[in-house]
């Protein structure tokens, strides 16, 4: 049986979160979408995923939020064995140079999307990152194939042989 891989979207503005969820809705039949309005909520969500044994493929995170900021959350996740290989995407208009550098160096940030972003840009990025996550985990790509970028799918499938089932 294949493992469930979720996507977590964190943003304090409900309107932005709405747009994000709408853009990623096509992935939801395979990758459950989780949302959080703050870093604290995101941490609750992570605890729940940990309990359920669900993997987290991608986190799409805003930076400036009330309470803990996004980059700090990502750095904390990078230090946690369970979320270390989760692909981390920053979706923000206001992260300064310092915070961005910190995200790259300390949280191994995978991608930076500046708000406002172009239509489908986010979907494209998330699909790519999911492919990289599946490759890094060495998971069987078949259950996720229909959502992956064709080029990536070809590379992932190369490991299959005629003796596979």
């Amino acid at each position, binding site marked *: 049986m294949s493992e469930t891989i979720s996507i977590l979207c964190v943003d304090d503005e409900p309107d932005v979160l709405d747009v994000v969820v709408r853009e990623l809705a096509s992935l939801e039949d395979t990758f459950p979408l989780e949302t959080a309005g703050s870093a604290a909520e995101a941490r609750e969500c992570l605890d729940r995923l940990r309990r359920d044994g669900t993997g987290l493929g991608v986190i799409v995170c805003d930076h400036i939020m009330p309470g803990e900021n996004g980059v700090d959350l990502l750095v904390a996740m990078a230090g946690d064995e369970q979320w270390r290989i989760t692909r981390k995407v920053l979706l923000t208009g206001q992260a300064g140079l310092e915070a961005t550098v910190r995200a790259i160096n300390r949280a191994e940030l995978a991608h930076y999307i500046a708000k406002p972003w172009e239509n489908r840009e986010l979907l494209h990025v998330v699909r790519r990152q999911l492919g990289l996550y599946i490759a890094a985990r060495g998971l069987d790509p078949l259950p996720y194939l229909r959502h992956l970028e*064709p*080029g990536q799918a*070809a590379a992932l*499938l190369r490991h*299959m042989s005629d003796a596979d089932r």
Partner: protein
Amino acid sequence: MLIRTMNRKWTGLFLGLLALLVMPFLSLEGLSFSGHVALGIFSMAAIFWIFEPIPIHATSMAVILSQVLLLSDQSVISGRLKLLHPEGYTAPAFTQFYGTLANPIIILFLGGFALAAAAEKYKLDRNLTRVLLKPFGTRPVMVSLGVMVVTAILSAFMSNTATTAMMMTVAIPIVAAVSRDDPFRRLIGLSIPVGANIGGIATPIGTPPNAVALAALARQGVIVPFSTWMMLATPLVVVTLLLSWWGMCRIFPPRIERFELRIDSTFDRSPRAIAAYTVFIVTVLLWITEKLHGIPSGVVAFLPLVLLPAMGVLEKKDIRGFSWEVLWLVAGGISLGLSLQQTGLAVWMVGQVSWEGFSTTGLVVLFSLVGFLVANLVSHTVSATILMPIAISLVLPLAGGVSAALVIPIAAIGIIVSYANILPISTPPNAIALSTGLIESRDLATSGILVGALGFIFTILFGLVLWPILL
């Protein structure tokens, strides 16, 4: 679901080990002690291969180990071997079992792997697809035919799985733009796995069941040249491919008027790419002309294995990327076949049933039917591996020393196994096609039944009418 999977695995593990341990202590009439031991190993292998408590290639490795430990001159019970094998079983050198890994047919496959890796690395597969698809034009049914033909040609030399993966990733982005309720999506989604599954039959290196059949024949001293296999299999592939296409176009009639499968790629003209193309062409030509120069295909296969790494076409990581587990899987089967013959187990098993009144054709139909049904549920290679040693013992006395009379039934059984593609789990190409979302399980069942019926009927027909003339 998970619990059921776990139960199945544990049941398989328990039954397999039980068979291995208990069989030697039974005293079945007419079976030697070594035959009992071989029966234990055979039963364990069959149970493990079907229930899959461990990966199927690991089962093959376990088979070779068990044979070395229990039936070779290095047996752990070797001091008492004479006592335990009172009927005078001469234990073969353990190197015989290890040697199956270097069997000429394994080397033939290895050569095929090297060629396929080079073709993939320099995008020869994509470029050939682009060039070969062009003449088929833009009428949707013709595009479907083109896809089937090109997939079949490629999968005759590459693995069915790699070909499907390549074709699917080329086709999906373009086909995805077609309206969801247009059957054309399903037609293309099925054309690829059907083409790949059928195409593998065409050459000895196309798919592992071919190797299983050829190895079984080689053990009886019948060496089938590359070109002879192609001469038998290619007309069958062409006929079943065309009829499958015709049938599938009736079941899934496209609605769109025009469709263009555009592929962006250009031939790599770097020196290494040219070297790869040259080695590919030379090797295939030498394989096809085996009868003219007399160099066996297993020897020719070593040419790309030397040249491609020597010229830097294949690097270390490419060699590591070969499907080594497929070779282990086939080698384990060949090794098992050795003991089935040497211990007299195969003859004993065949003797348990009265086959009187069965003609060779009747036997082939029966074994093909069993092989076909089993191969839908388990790996094609495994199905062929379990059946082949038994089938050949049955056919051998009927063949009366005529090699054609041995080749036809064994090739037919090996080939029909490849036509078993009804379920998503029947073959990796089916699983890939299903996971693209273009098709559903019942579409696979529809095409699988059509193609399976055609394959079954025409293989038997060709075996009766055409092959005797060709051989």
